[in-house]
């Protein structure tokens, strides 16, 4: 019997031995390093060509700094937000000259149609992770500002929706102590399943709201920051009306009449402690 190691046997020995050593070593480790990271305060000036798109509401500009790839979005006359523009689905670049579109309400990744609110919150998949957001200080009067990124950057302030003018001055036609309006509003609240997200007693703790980000508003709380017009607006136009990125649906006039919407507002007001 020959014990000569032929070519095939030698190769098998070397190949299998190499795999046996290499694969367990390779399979366990994830390597992740972003080059050029650090902290930075990135100034911007709308007079510069790179940022000219931010002169108009809905306009955008792309910025690369300190290892981050950002998109700046002019959300209203006085506000600019800064988000990572790398889609959290498959890393498509959402600069608007690449695969991104900002339609005035949401940032859309054209690669696979993920939608993000101006807060960075995912509105529609396939992406499941929110975009990182960054603190912006913007002076509309001078058209200049800065973006803070990196260690030590202040947390991003909560973005509150700016109420459109047509809703800003509305007031509830029903008196605050109108028991009939409150009772009717409670019935409408139940009929439209508002409690599934906001909770049966307005605690913001409905079962469908548990996994939402941001969480549904709680009405059994201080509502002093909300005007009547604000509540009416949020019911009427839903999440599309502001940069909160919530999943609040639209209850148009076909769903709930103006009067019934005000009755719901009356009920919500009655929930305040």
């Amino acid at each position, binding site marked *: 019997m020959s014990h000569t190691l032929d070519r095939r046997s030698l*190769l098998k020995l070397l*190949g299998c031995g190499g795999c046996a050593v290499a694969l367990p070593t390779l399979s366990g480790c994830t390597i*992740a*390093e*972003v080059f050029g990271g650090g902290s930075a305060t990135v100034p911007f000036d709308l007079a510069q060509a790179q940022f000219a798109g931010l002169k108009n509401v809905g306009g955008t500009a792309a910025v690369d700094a300190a290892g981050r790839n950002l998109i700046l979005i002019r959300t209203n006359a006085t506000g600019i937000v800064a988000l990572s523009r790398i889609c959290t689905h498959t890393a498509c670049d959402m600069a608007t000259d690449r695969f991104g579109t900002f339609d005035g309400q949401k940032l859309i990744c054209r690669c696979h149609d993920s939608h993000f609110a101006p807060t960075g919150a995912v509105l529609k998949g*396939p992406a499941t992770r929110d975009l990182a957001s960054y603190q912006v200080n913007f002076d509309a009067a001078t058209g200049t500002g800065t973006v803070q990124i990196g260690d030590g*950057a202040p947390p991003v302030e909560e973005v509150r929706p700016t109420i459109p003018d047509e809703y800003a001055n509305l007031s509830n036609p029903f008196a605050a102590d109108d028991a009939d309006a409150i009772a009717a509003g409670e019935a409408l609240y139940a009929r439209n399943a508002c409690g599934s997200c906001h909770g049966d007693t307005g605690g913001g703790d409905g079962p469908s709201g548990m996994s939402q980000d941001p969480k549904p508003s709680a009405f059994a709380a201080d509502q002093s920051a909300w005007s009547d017009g604000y509540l009416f607006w949020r019911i009427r136009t839903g999440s599309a009306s502001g940069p909160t990125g919530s999943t609040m649906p639209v209850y148009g006039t076909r769903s709930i009449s103006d009067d019934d919407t005000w009755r719901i507002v009356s009920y919500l007001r009655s929930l305040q402690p």
Partner: protein
Amino acid sequence: MSTLTLAARALVGLLLCTGVALATPRMSLTAGTPCTACHVNPNGAEGRTEVGFVAMHRVGMLTWDKLGAQAYHDIDSNAFLDGMVGVGVDFRTQTARLGRPELVDEGGKSTTQVPDYTTFPMQAQPYLYVIPTGGLTLYGTWLMGPDTLRDGKFCDPVFKGMSCFGAQAMYELGGTLPNVRVGVFQPGIGVRHDDHTILTRGDAADRRVPIIAPGYAEAGGEVAWQPRQWVRTEVGVFNTHNLDLALNDGTKTADLWPVAWQGRVTLQPLFEFGGAEKKPKVEDEFGDDFGAADAAPVTPFVLNTWLGASGYGSGDFRLVNAFLGLGIHEGLALLSEVSMSQRTTQHDTLNGMVALSYTPWAWIAGTLRAERASTSTDTSDITTWQYVATLEFFPLPGIELRPEYRLVQTDDYRFGQATLQVHLFY
């Protein structure tokens, strides 16, 4: 097997395989079997012939007969109606971290965040072929997308330029005359690898939009001529609809004609060293061959080679590929390819790869691959590297597990991860 027969078999196989993917180019380089023996598509990949069906149906670390499923093991064809109609399917899932690492600032502290692992469908593709008469083959395939599986949407290309279907009629004129193909199929461009992330067809400046997308296909026609066994030429004319999507629906721009031209030349000499025919039989008076037992043949050392180049272009866009492959029967294969593209609006790419594969048994193979892609534009020069270690493991016939480790390095980040591909096929 005579040297001539061996050479002819290997040459024909290698010639036919350089166009599209083989499940693995390594199979052709090491075994020397023609793609058309196993795949209906002349360029390999996708639907399998009866020979291909049997080849895959009987290969696995465990085979069906050993598991007691003798009747299933004995199935020897994927065709019906006396071989006139055949079917097949590929289904793949991938488990990987989709995306890239990012720096995230939370609580005043910066950290590097990587995507979570996710499992997603990668390929769901049925095939059908019909051979109505000798020399003529009709072949069709449907490449489903995520929305096909979710919402029933017929066409859902994942990449710009991907075609959700292919349909072609292939006619062999016979003898040494050319073969003709018409329909919707991928033009012969370099080597089509079984990896949709391969950088030779990619763009370092825009990895989401490869120059030639996985599943790229166009309507057109091709004439293939093989006047000698060691040389094959192809020329074709194709529509540019999907090429336009890939090049002009991003930041890249190209001024394309309505049609594209294509040409490819492949030289595939086979070199044989040493070896000897089996010793003459020594028979006794009863005719018993008692001498054959120790008359082992000396196996010749056979080196299969590929050397070829292709060109593809339209308007101001040109894509040139060159490839070289070396393979031996003991299971080693070395494949390299260089790809260069240009267009008038400066967006030049120069990509390359080299892969070393080893197949100790038919049911397991390992590959190490290095790739580089670079893109030069008016404003930037961008380079991406990718290193991949792959194990193709077939525990049972029709089932492939493909663990990989991938390391990608761009100008912005470095990202290495283990992934797993599960491939079911029939």
